[in-house]
């Protein structure tokens, strides 16, 4: 019956005739508005992600505290919204500064997830880019490239690694400036659609902001990632090995501590990433060691244990021991 009625009325509108009313898009009946922090966290399941971030990442206490602060702000905002207080989207663009391998990319992915759970980004994916993805090679190339990236990041988080490369003061006609301007516009006008996180070394980021005050003023949260203590690095190593079903025996643990003490002083030390690379090489040496005895039956313990010899074969031990 209802079909007939619908068919009988014309589907077009005559010019000048009153426009037929379009049905409002159906809205899902919302759950009762939350009244407590606990209810917001439970409804959004953001609490679980925050706890997981606490557990899965070693150290980084100041970073975790800042993320909790931001999450608290957003949760309270949700409560205020539930009682009808102003609903302007807070600015969520962030800047992560820190040395290589301090977990910036990893934390950005978690943040995307948290913002998604709390409803501040619609999809919660992370698009990680560097200058080459945004800036073109010739006139007219940059805007389409930057927009292409922005379109892919809509609904999620755009993570720009080593953002200061966008700005090259030594070349006044550098196309990076064009990318920065497009970014600024979207960061300002489409806060509901996209969160931008810039990342890079502290001093160079500072210099970048000094020459791009517009960018600084659009970033609400500056989070600094400290270098890891040797103890943190050791715990990160254990976590990484555990995930791959390896372990260090006592000798290897002592050797690895010594390894870290030496490696930290060497150039190009990249915190957790150096740990990961060192462990990858130790696994290679362990495999070679087992490979050298083709007729021996290896036990589960043999197959999963990295020994002191696997660590001490590293090039790092070839140099004289650190002075002092």
């Amino acid at each position: 019956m209802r079909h007939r009625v619908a068919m009988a009325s014309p589907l077009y509108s005559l010019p000048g005739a009153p426009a037929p009313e379009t049905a409002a898009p159906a809205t899902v009946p919302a759950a009762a508005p939350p009244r407590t922090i606990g209810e917001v966290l439970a409804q959004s399941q953001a609490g679980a992600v925050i706890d997981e971030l606490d557990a899965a990442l070693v150290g980084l206490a100041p970073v975790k505290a800042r993320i909790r602060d931001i999450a608290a702000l957003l949760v309270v905002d949700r409560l205020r919204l539930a009682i009808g207080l102003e609903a302007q989207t807070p600015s969520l663009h962030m800047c992560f500064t820190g040395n290589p391998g301090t977990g910036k990319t990893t934390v950005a992915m978690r943040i995307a997830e948290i913002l998604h759970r709390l409803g501040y980004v619609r999809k919660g994916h992370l698009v990680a880019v560097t200058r080459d993805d945004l800036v073109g090679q010739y006139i007219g190339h940059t805007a389409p490239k930057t927009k292409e990236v922005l379109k892919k990041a809509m609904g999620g988080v755009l993570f720009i690694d080593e953002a200061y490369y966008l700005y090259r003061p030594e070349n006044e006609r550098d196309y990076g400036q064009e990318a920065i301007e497009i970014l600024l516009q979207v960061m300002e006008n489409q806060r509901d659609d996209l969160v931008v996180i810039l990342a890079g070394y502290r001093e160079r980021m500072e210099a970048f902001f000094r020459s791009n005050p517009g960018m600084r003023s659009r970033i609400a949260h500056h989070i600094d990632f400290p270098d890891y203590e040797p103890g943190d690095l050791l715990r990160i190593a254990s976590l990484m090995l555990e995930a791959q079903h390896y372990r260090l025996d006592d000798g290897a643990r002592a050797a690895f501590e010594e390894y870290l003490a030496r490696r930290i002083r060497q150039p190009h030390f990249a915190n957790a990433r150096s740990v990961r690379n060192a462990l990858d090489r130790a696994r290679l040496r362990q495999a070679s060691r087992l490979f050298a005895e083709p007729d021996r039956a290896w036990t589960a313990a043999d197959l999963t244990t990295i020994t002191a010899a696997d660590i001490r074969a590293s090039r790092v031990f070839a140099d004289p021991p650190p002075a002092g």
Partner: protein
Amino acid sequence: MMTNPTGRLTQGQFSFLPDLTDAEIGLQVEYGLGRGYAWSVEYTDDPHPRNTYWEMFGMPMFDLKDAAGVLLELRSCRQTFPDHYIRLVAFDSTRGIESVAMSFIVQRPRREPGFSLSREEGPGRTLRYTIRGHEGDKPEGERYRE
């Protein structure tokens, strides 16, 4: 009886409905993204029914997660071509399908004079029909201007 009393171009989906709002366009785009389609924006001032291929406004958009990206491109197309027809096209790249899955008009000129049908009598009782757009005689770029 008038066959199309509003004179509106009726091509693609939803063309008998009142124009979709941006929010409604967004919902359609979300639906397509959910099915893995790649959206693209196309425009023309020659909407003759046999003109299948409209001009592309930028590349088709692969790997988008959210409708906001498509709407961004649509807004910039509207700004560039305020008097043109614009449509959104969704491409289904699934092997074996590889064709357009959705297509609908998202901008029309304010005035749509429509088409005329001319009949040409041939030998015997043959009739040849030709559809001609009322704006079609003007040069490209000058059509549908107020």
